[in-house]
């Protein structure tokens, strides 16, 4: 997932990673340490990558000005239309699961130029036909300020591309070792494939090497438990 995310980061862009997002943080740092050295990297709660002094207000104000090129969001439920649910599973008045809340996730799905949705669990309870509550809609009427929006969705099984014409996710690539049958069985909506859909390129030896050294070390400043567990054998 980190490698798939890293490949979406473009050199020179301003890229931000929000709360509870160690996988995007790893992907962005991998890009920064390889092909995107001139990217401006913002990682919430990271001592080296948090350029603000005015709390989250300064971050949100910066986002409102449309200054982020790439941002990351997730959700308790995600649907084929790119809608995210961070509020509740079931009726929000009597939820079966109370999710953490949006915390700006609606606005942050509109203003950054490209948003990558990530989720480390790819299952029918997460990837549903229709989310129970729309915290962040995949698409909006034309009279709403929305310079950006959904771009890709990255999971442990595949990469989706958001197709703005169809207002829906289409599978762009399936990760190595995952069959289309297995992917459908783990997804709660009928999959559409991009005509050019193929296999996600496997991580290269160089990518793995940087992940397990510089990225692990940098991510550990904010996510020590993740860094200790997620990068495979200690080198």
């Amino acid at each position, binding site marked *: 997932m980190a490698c798939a995310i890293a490949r979406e980061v473009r050199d020179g862009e301003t890229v931000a990673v929000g709360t509870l997002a160690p996988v995007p943080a790893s992907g962005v740092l991998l890009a920064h340490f390889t092909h995107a050295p001139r990217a401006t990297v913002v990682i919430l709660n990271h001592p080296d990558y948090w350029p603000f002094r*005015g709390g989250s207000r300064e971050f949100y104000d910066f986002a409102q000005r449309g200054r982020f090129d790439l941002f990351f969001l997730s959700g308790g439920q995600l649907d084929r239309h790119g809608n995210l649910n961070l509020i509740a599973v079931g009726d929000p008045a009597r939820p079966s699961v109370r999710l953490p809340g949006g915390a700006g996730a609606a606005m942050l799905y509109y203003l950054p130029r490209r948003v990558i949705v990530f989720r480390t669990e790819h299952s029918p309870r997460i990837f549903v036909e229709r989310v129970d509550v729309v915290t962040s809609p995949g698409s909006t009427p034309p*009279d709403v*300020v929305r310079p950006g929006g959904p771009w890709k969705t990255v999971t442990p099984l595949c990469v989706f591309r958001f197709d703005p014409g169809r207002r829906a996710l289409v599978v762009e690539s399936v990760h190595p070792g995952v069959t289309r049958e297995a992917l459908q069985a783990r997804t709660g909506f009928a999959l559409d494939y991009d005509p050019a859909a193929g296999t996600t390129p496997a991580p290269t030896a160089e990518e793995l090497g940087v992940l397990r050294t510089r990225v692990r070390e940098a991510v550990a400043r904010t996510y020590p438990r993740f860094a200790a567990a997620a990068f495979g054998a200690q080198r």
Partner: protein
Amino acid sequence: MAGHVGSDYERLRPDFRVIPNPYAPGERVLLVPPIRPDLALIHAIAATADGTLLLDHMEDDALLAQASRVVVASAERVVTPAELPAAGEGVVLQGIHVTAVAEAPGGARPTFVRGVYPVDADAIREYVAAARDDASFKAWLDRFVYG
């Protein structure tokens, strides 16, 4: 607020209003009412006796203090005005925003004070486990709050 229009917030929060943007015809924007707390309790890295606080620059304590009618601050330590800038890394909130201040070392535990002590994850796990039922939660309160 730019963006945001079109989510279920408008259904769940009727106090959030969508209006035509008076400065950009043909565009709708969202209004969110201000939150005005009666009381804010915040914990500072350091404070002076007049209530001036050194606060974590990654958190929103200064914003919270400026929104609230009454602000009661605790601080890891109370220092002189000359010592405050060197008391740690943070941002300074002037004492005019603060109603009362008290020295309370360790006052943020089991959460953290950046640069002073880390989050106590084991203590938080213990709390989460204790909070699952009334008997274990009462035992937790007796031990850590009333004890």
